[in-house]
């Protein structure tokens, strides 16, 4: 019988591109035969499992074969066994029932004199570990952490984390053994132990605070960059819990930041400063200097990470970020949208009373040239910086209203709800600006372009809602002769093309304006009918004074 190897399968699929599904089901039928055949050495079955793993990558399910995979995992030959473990690693999950059959197999393979066999078994356990496997095998894995081969110790340490995840009760009794690995004679085993403790500390930092001195020592002694990254990250997680730790770290981290050639380590150190050492200004300043270097670098990745990290500092030290204002605003022009987004995030930390209007002007320029979600975010940002902390940075409300109206007029702006909310908030709460506000609202109501935009775009109509409501509420600010024009706008037949809730506001406030008009014109009535363009109904008589 001619059994296909993986190579044959790959070539076969490539030459049957147009009938792939048909060809593949033929292959799967062949694989089923191979798996149920008598094959003492398991080589044919092992190849069959490998082919299934390949097909699974293309989207063909292999859950049905789990029992056969376990069979291959128990092969006497290492080459076949390895393939069985591979098949399990890529296809078994928590629902796979035959996983229970594997416990004894793992126990046996863990005892193998061949360290690579042990390694393969550990790898597989890391991938398929269930609660039951964790509970049954934890003791075996713990003793593997003391194997005389560093190769085995490293892997055993890493799989402990998976065991802890599935079976948390194992953590307390096994932790002392894990801790011992921090002083293992092999530096990669130490690195793995640091890795595991780093992950554990993320969830529960206070439990690992007592290890801080040990990590401190490792920080100064090791030259392995990967380990240093994890140690620095871990110490950063512990700093918020123990302020003295932050103080002690200033010197070694400053040293690291100034001397390391590895950008990844530099980035990690700066990140740690931003989350755990912010009270120490000297190192914060140093970090910002380095971040400036990142942002000015040609490498887009560094630029992105520089801006991202600055965001962390901004929460605590907005002034320090504001020093780099020009550079950040320049990034709003970058071709890469992810970089533009990061730069925009930083804008909130930079505004002050003095520069609010200038910054908004720059943002408005960008609004007119951008599109899509970035444009939406720009408008939201303008509103955010103007209104934050109860308009703390605002010095000129008339300017703000004019800006909001300008934004409302830009076609394609979809922030209507927010604009409406802002217009109403400002004009209602700031008495002094009401006359100006009403004037601007009248202009909006009478603007034919604005009107046609609103009938097409429901969010733009929200702004008209605000205009109508405000004009009605504060109609006493309307000048002589404006009432007629306003009523015409509010009652024109075209209003029926606006959304319903906007129409009802128009009607309601038309009445208010009418009443105000009648009062102000001292008895000389305006006919509502006239105002409505003579459409339907007669004119109402003026109310008697």
């Amino acid at each position, binding site marked *: 019988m001619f059994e296909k190897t993986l190579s044959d399968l790959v070539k076969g699929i490539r030459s049957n591109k147009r009938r792939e599904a048909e060809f593949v089901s033929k292959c799967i039928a062949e694989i089923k035969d191979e798996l149920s055949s008598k094959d003492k050495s398991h080589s044919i079955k092992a190849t069959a499992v490998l082919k299934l793993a390949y097909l699974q990558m293309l989207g063909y399910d292999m859950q049905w074969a789990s029992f056969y995979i376990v069979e291959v995992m128990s092969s006497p030959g290492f080459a076949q066994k390895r393939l069985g473990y591979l098949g399990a690693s890529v296809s078994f999950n928590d629902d796979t029932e035959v996983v229970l059959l594997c416990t004894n197999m793992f126990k046996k393979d863990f005892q193998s004199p061949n360290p690579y066999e042990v390694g393969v078994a550990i790898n597989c356990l*890391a991938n398929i570990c269930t609660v039951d496997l964790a509970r049954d095998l934890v003791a075996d894995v713990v003793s593997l952490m003391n194997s005389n081969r560093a190769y085995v110790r490293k892997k055993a340490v890493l799989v402990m984390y998976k065991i802890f995840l599935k079976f948390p009760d194992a953590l307390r009794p096994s932790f002392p053994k894990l801790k011992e690995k921090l002083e293992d004679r092999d530096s990669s085993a130490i690195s793995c132990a640091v890795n595991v403790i780093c992950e554990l500390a993320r969830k529960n930092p206070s439990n690992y605070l007592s290890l801080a001195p040990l990590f401190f020592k490792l920080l100064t002694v090791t030259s392995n960059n990967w380990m240093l*990254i994890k140690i620095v990250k871990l110490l950063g997680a512990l700093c918020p819990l123990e302020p003295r730790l932050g103080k002690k770290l200033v010197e070694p981290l400053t040293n690291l930041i100034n001397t390391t050639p590895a950008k990844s380590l530099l980035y990690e150190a700066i990140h740690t400063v931003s989350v755990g050492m912010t009270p120490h200004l000297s190192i914060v300043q140093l970090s910002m200097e380095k971040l400036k270097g990142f942002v000015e670098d040609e490498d887009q990745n560094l630029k992105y990470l520089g801006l991202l990290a600055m965001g962390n500092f901004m929460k605590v030290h907005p002034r320090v970020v504001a020093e780099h204002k020009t550079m950040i605003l320049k990034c709003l022009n970058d071709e890469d949208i992810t970089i533009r987004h990061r730069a925009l995030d930083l804008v909130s930390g930079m505004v002050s009373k003095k520069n609010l209007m200038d910054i908004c002007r720059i943002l408005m320029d960008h609004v007119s040239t951008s599109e899509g979600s970035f444009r939406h975010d720009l408008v939201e940002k303008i509103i955010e910086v103007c209104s934050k902390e109860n308009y703390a940075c605002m010095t000129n409300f008339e300017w703000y209203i004019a800006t909001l109206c300008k934004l409302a007029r830009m076609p394609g702006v979809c922030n209507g709800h927010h604009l409406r909310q802002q217009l109403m908030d400002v004009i209602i709460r700031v008495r002094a600006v009401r006359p100006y506000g009403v004037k601007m609202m009248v202009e909006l109501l009478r603007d034919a372009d604005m009107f046609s935009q609103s009938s097409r775009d429901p969010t733009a109509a929200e702004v008209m809602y605000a205009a109508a409501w405000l004009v009605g509420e504060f109609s006493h600010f309307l000048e002589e002769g404006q009432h007629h024009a306003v009523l015409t706008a509010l009652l024109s037949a075209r209003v029926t093309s606006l959304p319903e809730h906007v129409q009802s506001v128009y009607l309601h406030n038309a009445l208010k304006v009418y009443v105000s008009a009648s009062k102000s014109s001292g008895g000389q009535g305006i006919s509502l009918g006239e105002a409505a363009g003579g459409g339907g109904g007669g004119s109402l008589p003026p109310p008697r004074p």
Partner: protein
Amino acid sequence: MIKFLILVNKQGQTRLARYYEDRTDLSAEERTSQEADIVRKCLMRGEQQCSFLEYKGSKIVYRRYASLFFIIGADEEENELAILEFIHALVETMDRYFESVCELDIMSQLDKAHFIVDEMIVNGCILETNKNLALAPLAVLDK
């Protein structure tokens, strides 16, 4: 922690996939379409843009080598630059083993490719970045 490592070509075909998180929620088919989706997002970005994006709550770090995208999905905590360096180490290791690796090598010797990855990542943690140490077990067993 690394959540997954995938090698996908420009047409969206996956050449190697390794998941380190529980994955009962996705069927084989759903997974392949998610992989193609991720590669499409990577393709939409130009050469000059940065190698990071966000996808369904994971940080994605990718780099393109010839026709293959090497893509790693990780959680919030991972250091993006360290992952980029790791991807490079992985590519160099594969290059050494397969002698100037190409897509077809990975396809027809899928098991070897998996074994290389297994020497370098365990349980979503980076275990080994040194080419010689990672390839030593494979050399012994190939004899």
